[in-house]
């Protein structure tokens, strides 16, 4: 029996839609509902993962036309290596998260019915798979909206808090403004295919074969980039992201941050490299600039957060920025006819997209575990969780190391590849860019360092030290499905980190299709041990070797410390001669970020207030101190607040028409009639 990968992927979508329908009937049996639905979701995700990985490795493109859709405009599906690659990302993380959800959602049942969560979770996954499979503008937008609407309801799951409703509304607004831009972009392209005379330009195939004039192509690109950037949370379109991601249930946050943002990346790559495919260099420069801004500012914002999930959300902005850096460089190299370098940069960007899905999913799952166990999101109140949650903290640490870009985990590989792409930019023909682009590498280096600081803070404040709140609550380790989901993601992080040559060999069909070159011939020239992106003399990295050296160091350190009983002693804290050191005197998240807040303070709107208790006898001996710190995103005040104010002003002006008196309304129609009669006489 012959099965094409696209049939497998279609089966996965049908399975998810079926499970959404089934969930509605099972809502009376909540435990059964969770078990059945998330098992189905994990099976479907696994099927999609297989379909995607198979497509990429066999370097084929399947197409299918569905009998449904609008009359005479059927839905088209296509699974080529690019779609397969993103299907692998989505399927992979969805598989881990669905298994994790088996345990996580069970913990929610006691608080509220979960039917809504289960139904929209399945629809959300189905929407993401369909976005990737879509091969015409119509189906793409339908799938895009399914994904957006389902995730809106997921963000709104705990809808009793005003904050959550506000976040969901903001998300909905930005998602729709973005969707309109994407719609217009497809409209421009489809219209140009047929000269604005028919509807048959709506398939991606037709768009691919068309030739666009530079002005129209730029319009289409800018519109679609705006739309996808709004979804990806590129600065300055990121404001919804740190609001919406933290308030969703953690398994959903993992998916939103880990893979939903990747569908936007997919859209950018699909439109630029595949549909338009001939573009001037400044498009790439624009993408590169925005990527750099997102990366640096994203991590700085992340550093300032005290809410664990908000920190992770801002860090997603940073990582999307890094992915865009790779894509932007690939675009620049492509427009200067340097396919090999373009392939390297594109591989770096896509590799980082894959890595980010894995470690951000892992981190959000870990944050969910902490939330599940400690019922607390504010890091300032936590601490010392490593003793109570050994598994979660260990796995969270893996995520932290990966995201900080440290070997032997995966974050290092993709950031290193991005650096290689940067450092090869002197081969560009333009002298100005030879000078400017390597500056981007410096910013990327800053980002990597800051993100390491950020995750030292996240891990250190949350898991190390001692509990900072009043009474340490009874905290139990998370259950097995949750552990299993996290372990698999962590193993993936390690695998992607120590065997990059195999991964690059596998995913090479993607750049081959898009930019016409591949890097595995050079990258894997020295076997699976050595990754040599361009040439051995330039740079090489051996994941396995680094891994074994690090492992050896850890083992030796462990042996030295633990072999002899009593070489580790626990003693009371040295209190510098003061007495009574309390748990609240520990280093906090705010104090950790303070030096960086001072250095980069001009990026934020900071209001810091220290108020002494007026009842003290003398100012030198204050009884109590009040400290208030508020850090806000300047973009809100710069861009969004004027927009919001303007729209409110407009609606107030329009509202003046509404007098509430029938006569006034009649006069409106009367005057209109008279006017029209005069004009059209």
């Amino acid at each position, binding site marked *: 029996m012959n099965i094409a990968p696209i049939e497998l992927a279609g089966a996965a979508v049908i399975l998810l839609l079926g499970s959404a329908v089934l969930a509605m009937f099972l809502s009376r049996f909540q435990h059964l509902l969770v078990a059945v639905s998330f098992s189905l979701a994990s099976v479907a995700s696994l099927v999609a993962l297989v379909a995607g990985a198979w497509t990429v490795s066999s370097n084929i493109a399947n197409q299918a036309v569905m009998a449904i859709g609008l009359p005479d405009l059927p839905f088209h599906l296509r699974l080529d290596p690019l779609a397969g690659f993103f299907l692998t990302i989505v399927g992979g993380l969805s598989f881990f998260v669905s298994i994790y959800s088996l345990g996580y959602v069970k913990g929610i049942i006691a608080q509220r019915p979960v039917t809504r969560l289960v139904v929209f979770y399945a629809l959300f996954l189905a929407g993401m798979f369909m976005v990737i499979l879509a091969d015409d503008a119509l189906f793409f937008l339908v799938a895009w909206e399914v994904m957006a609407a389902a995730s809106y309801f997921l963000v709104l799951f705990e809808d009793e808090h005003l904050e959550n409703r506000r976040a969901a509304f903001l998300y909905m607004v930005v998602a729709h403004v973005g969707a309109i831009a994407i719609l217009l972009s497809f409209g421009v392209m489809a219209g140009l295919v047929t000269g604005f005379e028919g509807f048959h330009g709506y398939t991606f195939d037709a768009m691919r074969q068309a030739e666009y004039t530079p002005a129209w192509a730029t319009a289409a690109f800018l519109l679609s980039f705006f739309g996808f950037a709004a979804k990806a949370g590129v600065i300055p379109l990121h404001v919804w992201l740190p609001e919406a991601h933290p308030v969703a249930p953690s398994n959903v946050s993992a998916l939103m941050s880990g893979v939903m943002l990747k569908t936007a990346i997919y859209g950018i790559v699909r439109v630029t490299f595949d549909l338009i495919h001939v573009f001037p260099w400044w498009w790439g420069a624009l993408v590169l600039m925005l990527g750099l801004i997102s990366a640096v500012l994203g991590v700085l914002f992340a550093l300032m957060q005290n809410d664990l999930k908000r920190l992770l959300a801002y860090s997603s902005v940073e990582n999307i920025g890094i992915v865009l850096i790779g894509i932007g460089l690939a675009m620049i190299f492509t427009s200067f006819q340097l396919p090999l370098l373009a392939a390297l940069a594109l591989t770096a960007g896509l590799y980082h997209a894959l890595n980010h899905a894995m470690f951000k999913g892992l981190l959000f799952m870990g944050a969910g575990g902490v939330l599940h166990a400690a019922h607390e999101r504010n890091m300032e109140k936590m601490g010392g969780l490593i003793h109570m949650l050994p598994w979660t903290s260990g796995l969270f640490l893996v995520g932290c190391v990966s995201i900080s870009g440290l070997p032997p985990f995966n974050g290092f590989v993709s950031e290193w590849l991005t650096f290689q792409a940067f450092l090869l930019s002197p081969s560009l023909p333009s002298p100005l860019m030879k000078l400017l682009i390597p500056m981007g590498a410096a910013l990327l280096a800053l980002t990597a360092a800051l993100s390491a600081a950020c995750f030292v803070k996240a891990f250190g404040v949350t898991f190390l030290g001692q509990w900072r709140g009043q009474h340490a609550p009874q905290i139990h380790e998370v259950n097995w499905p949750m552990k299993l989901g996290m372990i698999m993601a962590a193993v993936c992080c390690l695998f992607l980190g120590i065997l990059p040559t195999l991964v690059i060999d596998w995913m090479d069909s993607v750049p081959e299709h898009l930019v016409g070159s591949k890097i595995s011939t050079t990258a894997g020239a020295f076997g699976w041990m050595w990754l040599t992106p361009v040439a051995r003399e330039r740079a090489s990295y051996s994941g396995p070797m680094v891994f074994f050296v690090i492992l050896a160091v850890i083992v030796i350190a462990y042996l030295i410390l633990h072999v002899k009983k009593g070489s580790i002693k626990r003693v009371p804290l040295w209190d510098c001669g003061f007495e009574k050191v309390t748990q609240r005197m520990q280093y906090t998240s705010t104090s950790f970020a303070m030096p960086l807040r001072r250095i980069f303070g001009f990026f934020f709107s900071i209001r810091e207030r220290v108020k002494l208790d007026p009842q003290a006898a003398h100012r030198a001996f204050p009884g109590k101190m009040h400290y208030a710190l508020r850090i806000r995103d300047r973009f809100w005040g710069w861009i969004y607040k004027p927009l919001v104010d303007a729209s409110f002003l407009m609606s*107030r002006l329009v509202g003046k028409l509404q*007098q509430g*008196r*029938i006569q006034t309304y*009649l006069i409106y129609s*009367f005057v209109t*009639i*008279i006017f029209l009669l005069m004009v059209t006489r």
Partner: protein
Amino acid sequence: MNLHIAAQINSFLAALVLLTAFGMLVQKRVYGLIHLFAWQGFFLSLNTAIVGFVADRHHLYISSVLTLSLKVFLLPYILHVLIHRLKIRKEVETIVNIPTTMMIGIALVIFSYHLTAPVRELSNLVTRSTIAVALATVMLGLLMMITRKHAVTQIIGFLALENGLFFAATSATYGMPLVVELGVALDVLIAAFIFGIFFFHINRTFDSLDVEQMARLKEGD
């Protein structure tokens, strides 16, 4: 009856329709308004019958009978009952004073003649000179709705407007197809019933039929 006389009679009736329209614009008492409305309906139905006779369109007789029964007897009767039930005694208040209203009305009539001048040149129907009057009646009905505060006068204004439309149909094209006219007649009847029901509700809610009270329904800023 030759065509010349028919055109004369038609113009005469048109003048009467316009006169009643102006009458309604200035009439302050509700009962007076209803009587004027009934008269307008009567002239209309007479005109329809004559046009039907001259043009040899027999379905216009049915329209004529329909107009007579509906607009001369049934609707005024419904309005009478309504006013009686709602115990409306006082005079109808206007927003703009009556001389000003008259001036606006005259301006509208002139405007309608100006508007329909091209139609008069092109058409060769007997009734072509009355199109302007029909259009003026529509506008005067709308003007009446705008200048009056009372809900009952608003419906009378609406019905007068509908009369104008009907008149326009007969004078411009010798009437619409019968099916359409039947439908319109039914619509008017239903509208009258719905208005009647609304009046009771408005009266109960606001203790008055003054539509200005409904401004309170507006959302505050």
